C-alpha cells in the first residue's frame, strides 16, 4: 500500500535476499498474469512481505526458477514458480484501487486527473479481484468510508485515525491462514502493521499536509499545530515504538515454518530502520 514494510537489506544474507527478491518478482508476475500489466508497476514491498509471510506459514515446498523480467528485458531473474501468490496479488490490486480512489478525492488537479485515468484502466482487474475475495473487498470499502469520515471530522486521536488502515491490514493478513488461532495472531500482526504504516505515512507527509492544509492527525496534537517538527517527531516515535513492541509480542506467537531469518529481519530491523529514515527525512531507496 505504501511500501514501508521492507527488509533492512544490508543485514540480509545473499541467499535470503535472493528468496525475498524471488517472492517480489513472483508476485509481480502473478499480478501481470491474473490482472493487468499496468498494475505490475504499482507493486509495493508491503505485499512482498505478505507473500513471504504466506509462504512461511505453509508446509509446501517452494520452487524458484529464472524467468524473463519486464523491467530488465535482457536478463532473466529468479522468480517463485509454484503458485501460492494469487491471494497477495489480489490483495495488492484491491488496496491500490482504494488508494487511487482516495487520491481522486483529496489531491491536486494533475494527481487527481492521473488517478481517474488509472482507475479506468484497473477497474476490470479490481472487479475480478473483488469477485474472488468479496469479504476483503467489503471490508476495504467499509473502512475507507470510515477513513473519509475521520478526515472530514478532523479526528484528533492518532489511535482513531490509524484504525481504518489497521483494520484493512488486519483483514488482509488474517486470510493467510485457515487455522483459527493463527488467524487471530495474524489479525493482530496485521492490525499493528497497519498502524505502523499509517503513522509512518502521516509523519512522511506532515510538511506537505501542513502546506496544503490537509488532514493529518499529527498536526492536531497539542503543541504541534504550527508544525513544531521536534514535538511531532517525538510523538510519532513514541507511537511507532509502542506499536513495534506489541507487534513483536504477537510475532513471537506465530508458528513460522520457513524463512524465519528474513521475517525476523523485516520485523526487528526493517520496520525500525525505515521509520528512522522517515524520521530523519532521508530518502527511501527503491
Amino acid at each position, binding site marked *: 500500500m505504501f511500501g514501508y514494510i521492507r527488509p*533492512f537489506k*544490508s*543485514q540480509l544474507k545473499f541467499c535470503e535476499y535472493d528468496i525475498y527478491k524471488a517472492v517480489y518478482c513472483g508476485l509481480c508476475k502473478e499480478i501481470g498474469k491474473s490482472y493487468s500489466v499496468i498494475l505490475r508497476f504499482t507493486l509495493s514491498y508491503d505485499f512482498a512481505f505478505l507473500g513471504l509471510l504466506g509462504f512461511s506459514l505453509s508446509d509446501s515446498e517452494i520452487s524458484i526458477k529464472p524467468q524473463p523480467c519486464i523491467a530488465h528485458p535482457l536478463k532473466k531473474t529468479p522468480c517463485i514458480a509454484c503458485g501460492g501468490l494469487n491471494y497477495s496479488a489480489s490483495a495488492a490490486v484491491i488496496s491500490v484501487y482504494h488508494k487511487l480512489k482516495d487520491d481522486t478525492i483529496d489531491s491536486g488537479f494533475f494527481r487527481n486527473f492521473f488517478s481517474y485515468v488509472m482507475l479506468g484502466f484497473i477497474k476490470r482487474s479490481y472487479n475480478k479481484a473483488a469477485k474472488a475475495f468479496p469479504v476483503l473487498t467489503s471490508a476495504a470499502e467499509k473502512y475507507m468510508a470510515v477513513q473519509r469520515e475521520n478526515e472530514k471530522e478532523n479526528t484528533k*486521536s*492518532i*489511535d*482513531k485515525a490509524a*484504525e481504518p488502515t*489497521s483494520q484493512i491490514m488486519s483483514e488482509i493478513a488474517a486470510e493467510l491462514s485457515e487455522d483459527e*488461532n493463527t488467524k*487471530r*495472531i495474524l489479525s*493482530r500482526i496485521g*492490525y*499493528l502493521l497497519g*498502524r505502523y504504516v499509517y503513522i509512518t505515512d502521516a509523519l512522511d507527509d506532515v510538511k506537505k499536509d501542513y502546506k496544503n492544509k490537509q488532514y493529518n492527525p499529527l498536526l492536531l496534537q497539542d503543541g504541534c499545530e504550527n508544525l513544531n517538527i521536534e514535538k511531532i517527531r517525538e510523538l510519532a516515535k*513514541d*507511537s511507532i*515504538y*509502542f*506499536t*513495534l*513492541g*506489541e*507487534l*513483536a*509480542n*504477537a*510475532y*513471537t*506467537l506465530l508458528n513460522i515454518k520457513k524463512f524465519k531469518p528474513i521475517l*525476523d529481519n523485516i*520485523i*526487528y*530491523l526493517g520496520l*525500525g*530502520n525505515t521509520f*528512522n529514515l522517515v524520521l530523519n527525512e532521508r530518502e527511501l531507496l527503491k
Partner: protein
Amino acid sequence: MTDPYVILGVSPSATDDEIREAYRKMSLKFHPDRHSQSTLSDLAEEKMKEINAAFDRIMDMRRGGGEQKYSYTSSQYYSGDNSVFSEIRSQIKQGNLTDAENILDQPTTQRNAEWSFLKGSVCYARGWLNEAFENFSNAVRLDPQNAEYNAALNSMINARQGNMNGNPNPYRGRDTVCGCSACDLCQGLVCADCCCECSGGDLISCC
C-alpha cells in the same frame, strides 16, 4: 506429543546448562507480563505451558524421574472485590471489548485507578496504544504501589525505548544500524594517528 527438544529449540546433545538457558530465554519471550494486556494472552499462556512441560520432560528423562520441577506460573495480581470491575475484567478476557467499554463509560462507574487501568486494557486490546499508555500512566499515578498497573505501564515504557520481544540482535537496528558512522571512522583514524605519532611514526601526514 512433539519432541520436547524441538519445542525448546535445542539439540538432544545439549548440556543441562544450555537447556536451562534456552528454557529461560523462551519463558521470557512468552512471559505473562509481556502478553497480559494482549488479545492473544491465552495463546501465550498455552505456549508457556508447552515450554514448561517440555522442560520438565527433558529434565525427567535426564535424571530418570526427576525431582526438581521448574515452572513459571502466570502472575495473579488481581485481588479486588468490586463486582463491576470484575465483570469488566471477565468481559475483556472474553474479548467483548465493546461491552467492557460500555460498562466503563456508565456515569455510575467509579473513576479510580482501577477504572483507568481497565480503560487502558480495553484500549490496548484494541490496538489503541497511545490512549492505553495514557490510561496506564494515570492508573499508576493514582495508585503507585499497584504491581499490576506498574507491570502494564513498564512493559509499554520498555517498548517505547525500542525493545522488541524476541529480537535476535537487540543492540543493532535502532538508531545507528550499521554500527559505525562516518564520524566514528574519522575519530578512529585520528586516534590511530595520535598513537602512531606517540611512538615516532605517522599515519596521517597532514596532522
